[in-house]
């Protein structure tokens, strides 16, 4: 991965413009996913693997590609990403 591991996030956000004449209260932040497959390019050999049982549950054999998703608008859901 060419990205800086210290600043790498799988979710980004932005604040849409909210004008004084908009009918609804502002949603605040809008979130979008930037999953790992956007950054890896061709998968390098010998990446670490999940144990088989865990891999079956996660949907991938490789932790590099694992990206748990939670509704970002749910109360208490991981704010502060991106």
């Amino acid at each position, binding site marked *: 991965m060419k990205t800086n591991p210290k600043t790498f996030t799988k979710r980004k956000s932005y604040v849409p413009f909210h004008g004084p004449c908009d009918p609804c209260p502002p949603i605040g932040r809008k979130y979008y*996913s930037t*999953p*790992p*497959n956007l950054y*890896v*390019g*061709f*998968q390098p050999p010998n990446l670490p693997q999940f144990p088989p049982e865990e891999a*079956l*549950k*996660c*949907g*991938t054999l490789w932790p590099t*590609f*694992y*990206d*748990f*998703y*939670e*509704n*970002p*608008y*749910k109360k208490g859901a991981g704010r502060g990403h991106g």
Partner: protein
Amino acid sequence: MWKYEKKLQYPVKVSTCNPTLAKYLMEQYGGADGELAAALRYLNQRYTIPEKVIGLLTDIGTEEFAHLEMIATMIYKLTKDATPQQLRDAGLSEHYASHDSALYYENAAGVPFTAAYIQAKGDPIADLYEDIAAEEKARATYQWLIDLSDDPDLNDSLRFLREREVVHSQRFREAVEILKEERDRKKIF
């Protein structure tokens, strides 16, 4: 030739009686970026693509049918015991009028499936770029479904399916790299 294993790719458990979720899930059943569209798109493209990536299209196209079966199971579980009144409250009265609680290939808004959702340009790069886009759109659809659903067990299965879209997108991106054949060029120059 296919071999069928009489089990789901990942367990499907639905813990709350909420037929409205069935209506939303139909987006992944018969929608433009749904599992049926994905399976038919990839399996059809296999015939006119370089040999190196045919196997990938077969594998992923086949897996999409396994996903379709999971979505069908979710919809079935959410509607099989629903009364006409419950289906009406869930916004499924138009569906009921035509289909009872039978499954049908249509999207969340009731628009029937059409082959026009699928492209086959015959250009390997154009087709694989469409496949990557299709995976990202399906991933996004799963996110919106998880956002709409508050059933933890259903969301668990939806998260598995979303993760598979991430992996499929990765593999299609690698297929593009294979066809570009620039991977090891740096070593030569």
